[in-house]
C-alpha cells in the first residue's frame, strides 16, 4: 500500500515514518508539508492511503480533503488535540490518531484498513467502470461545519441542487457538497443514478415504489421517505431506462 504523510512538522513526519517501519506492507511514497505540496504529490504518486494532519498552515487537512476530486484515498487523520475534529471523527467513525501516536493504536488502525482494502478487492468488477465515473464503493468526503463524513457513493439516496452546491442525502444526514449538481452528474455512474429533474438526481437502488402522477408523470418514493416528481418526458426516459 502506498502512503503519503502530510504534516507541517518535519519531526512529526519523521516520527510517523519511524513508527510505520513496523508495517512492511505500508510503503511511504512521499511526504508533504502543506496542502499545496500534498496536491502535487497526490497527482504524481496516486497513493492509496493518506496520513493527514488536521492543523496545517494555509489550508487545514479538512479543507484539503474537501477540495480533492472523488474518489479520495483512504485517510487516517492525525491530530494533537482538537476537540472539534475528534468529535467529528468519532461521530462518523473516521479513523484518527492522536499525537504522539500510540504504536498499539496505529497497529489497530492499520489492521482495520487492511480489512477494508481486502473487502473492496473482492468487488473488483466495480472498478471496470471508466475511472472518470465513481464506483459504488468509492468514497466522497463531505464536510458541514464541525461534522464530516466519508460517504460511499452507493449510500447516497438523493442529490439536490442548491445553486453552486449540492445537498447530499444519506443515512440520517444531508450535508452540502461544494460542487454543482451538473458537476456531480458527470461523475456519477448513469447505471445507478438518474437525473429526475433539473434539481434532483436519484439513486435507482434506493427506489421504494412508483406512483402515477399528474399528466403522465411519475412520483418516485425513495427508501427513507423522500418523494421525487418526474415530468412526463422524464418519466418516459425513466421507463425506457428501466425496461432495458
Amino acid at each position, binding site marked *: 500500500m502506498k502512503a503519503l504523510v502530510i504534516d*507541517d*512538522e518535519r*519531526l512529526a513526519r519523521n516520527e510517523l515514518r519511524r513508527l510505520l517501519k513496523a508495517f512492511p506492507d505500508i510503503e511511504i511514497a512521499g511526504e508533504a508539508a502543506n496542502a499545496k505540496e500534498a496536491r502535487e504529490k497526490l497527482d504524481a504518486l496516486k497513493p492509496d492511503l493518506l496520513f493527514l494532519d488536521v492543523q496545517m498552515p494555509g489550508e487545514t487537512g479538512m479543507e484539503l480533503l474537501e477540495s480533492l476530486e472523488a474518489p479520495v484515498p483512504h485517510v487516517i487523520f492525525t491530530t494533537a*488535540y482538537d476537540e472539534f475534529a475528534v468529535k467529528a471523527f468519532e461521530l462518523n467513525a473516521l479513523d484518527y490518531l492522536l499525537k*504522539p501516536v500510540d504504536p498499539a493504536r496505529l497497529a489497530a488502525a492499520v489492521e482495520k484498513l487492511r480489512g477494508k482494502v481486502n473487502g473492496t478487492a473482492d468487488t473488483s468488477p466495480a472498478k471496470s467502470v471508466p475511472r472518470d465515473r465513481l464506483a459504488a464503493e468509492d468514497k466522497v468526503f463531505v464536510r458541514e461545519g464541525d461534522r464530516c463524513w466519508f460517504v460511499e457513493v452507493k449510500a447516497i439516496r438523493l442529490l439536490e441542487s442548491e445553486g453552486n452546491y449540492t445537498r447530499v442525502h444519506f443515512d440520517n444526514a444531508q450535508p452540502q457538497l461544494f460542487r454543482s449538481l451538473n458537476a456531480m452528474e458527470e461523475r456519477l455512474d448513469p447505471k445507478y443514478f438518474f437525473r429526475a429533474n433539473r434539481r434532483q438526481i436519484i439513486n435507482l437502488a434506493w427506489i421504494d415504489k412508483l406512483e402515477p402522477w399528474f399528466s403522465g408523470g411519475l412520483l418516485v418514493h425513495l427508501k427513507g421517505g423522500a418523494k421525487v416528481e418526474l415530468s412526463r418526458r422524464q418519466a418516459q426516459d425513466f421507463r425506457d431506462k428501466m425496461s432495458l
Partner: protein
Amino acid sequence: MEATAATSHSLLLEDTARRTRGKQRLYVICQLCGWLFFLGLHVTLFVMDPGKDPYMIQLRIFNTSLIAIMVLVGLLMTHYLRPLFARWGWKNLGWRALVPRIFGMTLVQSTLLVAVVFAYPFFFLQYPWPAKHSIWLSVALTWVNDIVLFGVWFCVYFFYHLFERFNRSELERAQLAASAKEAELRSLKSQVNPHFIFNSLNSLRALIDEDPARARQSVTQLANLLRYSLQSGQLETVPFEDELRVVNDYLALEQVRHEERLRVRLDISPDTLQLPIPPMLLQTLVENAVKYGISTQREGGEIAIVARQEGGALRLQVTNPGSLPEAVRRAKASASTGVGLKNASDRLRLLFGEKATLNLRSATPDSVVAEAVIPLRIA
C-alpha cells in the same frame, strides 16, 4: 477549593454570631443607661433641692417613686415590644413607613403607661390621691412626658436599625463585588494551549533519536512552561522578567516544531524587567502570534517582542506576519480562538483598571501587532 469555601463559610458564620452578640450587649447598655439616666435626673433634682416645706418634700418623694415605677414599667414594655417589632417586620421598613407607625405607637404606649401608673392604683385599687392638685393635671403632664420618652426611645431604636441596615447592604454589595471579581479573575486566568503541549510532546519524541541533547533541553523547557502555567493561577502579578524567561522557553519549543519557519527577535529595555505584569499575558500574546503568524503561513516568519517603559506604563508589543482581516476571519471561523485575547484583555482591566489596554492592529499591510499597555501603579 472545597476546603477554602468551607473555611470562609464558617468564618462568615462566626463573624455573624460575634456581631449578634455585640448588638445584644449594645442594646442592654442603651436600654439600662437610657432609663436610669431619666430616673437619675429626677432623683438628682430632688436631692439637690428637696425644698423646706414638708408637704413639698413628701410630694416630691411621691413623684419620684411614681417615676421609678414608670421607668420600671417602661423598660419592661419596650423590652417586650422588640419581638413584636421583629414579627411585624418594622425593622425592615423605610423611614417613610416608619414615621407614622412610630408616632402611633408612641401615643399607644404612653397612654398605656399612664394607665398602668395612675389608673391601676388610684382608680382601680382606690388609693387616695395624696397631692393637693388635681390628679388629672398629673395624668396630663405625665402623658406628655411619656410621649417624649417613648418618642425618643423609638427614634433611637429604629434609627439604629435603619443605619445598620444601610451599612450592612453596603458591606454586602462590596463583598459581592469582590467575590465576583475574584471568580472572574480565576476563570480568565489562561493556560497553555493543550494543542501545543501534545504537538510538542510529539516533536520531542522524534527528537530523542535525532538530537538527544536538544531533546533533554526541550523537556526542561516544557517542564518550566507547564510549572509556570500551573502556578500562575495563584499570583495576581509576576515580574516581567519571569514571564519573559518562560516565553523564551515557549518560543524555543515552538522552534523545535516549526524549525526555520519561526524566527524570533527580542528588543527588551532593561528597565522593564522588574515591572509587574499579570502572569501569562505576554505568553498569550506570543501564543496568538505563533498561532496566526506562523502556523497559518506556509513560509512562516518573524515574531518580534518589544518592551518599553514610557509614560508611566509598561508597553508590550508582539508583532507577527499576517494581516488583520485574515486574523479576524480565522478567529470567527473557530469560536475558541478569539477568546484568548479577549480574556487577557478583561483580566488586564480587572487588575489594573481602565488605563490598562490591549489591542490588535495592523502594523504594516503584512504584519499584525498586539499591544498591551500596563500602568505602573495597580488601580
